[in-house]
């Protein structure tokens, strides 16, 4: 008995350690390939260079940083109001029985493979944008809309949890002073749940920045500085996704270096989400 317990403990420890060390190994590998490259061409030329022409040895990723930035911003502009509205509706107006069906349905949205979102965007959204707004249709606008929908489950479920976790005396106190339901939500409940809501937004943002497949399909992948929401663009992730298959030598290293930058951005976003959601618990 004793020995069996010990054995199980050791096995679990081994599994835990090996998964952590695999993660560490991946990070080590990306940094090992990417950092020396950044060092070689200089962080300035890499981060602020506007031209990405690997065949000529030009490796500036500013267009991709800008592309990622605009697509993510657009996704948030759509995803935050829509997601918050859904969370509030689920928490405050949906009858409990209906909510028990809706909640898993929303979580299911997160399980739809991103290629499906991309496919839908390509078939439905892109032609709409092209016909009614002009441009190639494969654009920042189309990407933002799709990405906005893709981050909804994250924003909805985490915000709703934050609202639901509030002690009931906030709502009672807000209403007892003569406020309407909506005034209580807006002036008491949302500020009280703020850190959880902010965490949901940051996690949604992380998902948006990391999304690759759907963006390869919808954004048009042009390597140039986008000048409007109707332009094609390329993000940091799609840059890696498209070119990694055939890259070699310093081109390959440049893609790893792109990964390093992504790694930093995601790390910063996730740690701030963790810090913020901890604060909520206190």
């Amino acid at each position: 008995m004793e020995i069996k317990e010990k054995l199980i403990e050791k096995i679990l420890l081994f599994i835990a350690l090996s998964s952590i060390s695999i993660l560490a190994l991946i990070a080590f590998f990306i940094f090992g390939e990417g950092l020396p490259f950044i060092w070689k061409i200089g962080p300035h030329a890499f981060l602020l260079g506007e031209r990405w022409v690997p065949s000529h040895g030009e490796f500036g990723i500013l267009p991709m940083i800008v592309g990622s930035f605009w697509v993510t911003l657009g996704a948030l502009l759509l995803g935050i109001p829509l997601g918050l509205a859904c969370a509030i509706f689920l928490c405050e107006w949906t009858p409990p029985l209906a909510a028990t069906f809706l909640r898993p349905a929303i979580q299911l949205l997160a399980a739809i493979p991103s290629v499906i979102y991309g496919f839908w965007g390509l078939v439905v959204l892109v032609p709409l944008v092209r016909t009614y707004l002009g441009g190639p249709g494969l654009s920042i606008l189309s990407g933002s809309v799709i990405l906005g929908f893709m981050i909804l489950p994250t924003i909805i479920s985490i915000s709703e949890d934050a609202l639901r976790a509030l002690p009931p005396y906030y709502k009672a106190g807000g209403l007892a002073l003569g406020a309407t339901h909506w005034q209580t939500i807006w002036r008491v409940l949302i500020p009280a749940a703020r850190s959880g809501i902010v965490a949901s937004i940051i996690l949604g943002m992380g998902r948006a920045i990391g999304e690759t497949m759907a963006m390869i399909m919808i954004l048009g992948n042009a390597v140039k500085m986008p000048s409007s929401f109707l332009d094609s663009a390329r993000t940091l992730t799609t840059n890696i996704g498209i070119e990694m298959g055939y890259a070699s030598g310093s081109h390959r290293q440049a893609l790893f270096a792109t990964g390093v930058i992504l790694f930093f951005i995601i790390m910063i976003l996730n740690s701030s989400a963790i810090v913020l959601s901890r604060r909520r618990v206190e």
Partner: protein
Amino acid sequence: MVTQISEGLKAEVKDLNFYYTHHQALKNIHLQIAEKKITALIGPSGCGKTTYLRCFNRMHDLYPGNRYEGEIILFPDQLNIISPKIDPIEVRMRISMVFQKPNPFPKTVFENVAYGLRVRGESRRSLVEDKVEKALKQAALWEEVKDRVQDLAFNLSGGQQQRLCIARALATDPEILLFDEPTSALDPTATSKIEELIMQLKKEVTIIIVTHNMQQAARVSDYTAFMYLGEIIEFDKTDKVFTHPSKKLTEDYITGRFG
């Protein structure tokens, strides 16, 4: 038969029954609330004091299935505040509530007190500032917080937070102020401050206070109602209830034989 009072009335409860879905928590309650006096509700835990108090500002409307029967008439306009035809928000505009545990909002001291004004659409800055200051003074908190009204309310002590909640309720000039065991979460010093404050406040507002602390009822109130199992057993002037209770049950309770 419950004693009739002879002073000016602020409210009259007639044949009030209340149901949590199927469970009847209040039975045939008759009671008169004297204007600008303090009425205390005492009784053992679970007898329905909180349930009764929450009828006065329609807090039971938050949950479906809760049902009122009977009337609570508010004077001078003789409005039946539990009538389904009356908007609970209109009632809560006139009858405010302070809860058992201090529940300041996650906002600054100033914004906590200004909340009631803001939800009424008041946006004139100087008027809001004046009313906030006045309410904090009424709640005997101004001297302690006047230099930190922009601090978060959570930074105040428990007793200060409860006085802040009182100020928050006072800022909109309610006609009746409801207190549900407002000192049960506080230490003795903070408690006596709040008691003093409540006695001061009756000059301006009618007060109903729930307490399971009989000394507190005896100290602060003008009238006392003793409740048991959802009914009012005895109601009279406070000295009368505590010195010459007319019912055996009341006497047993105030002498500590049960509860």
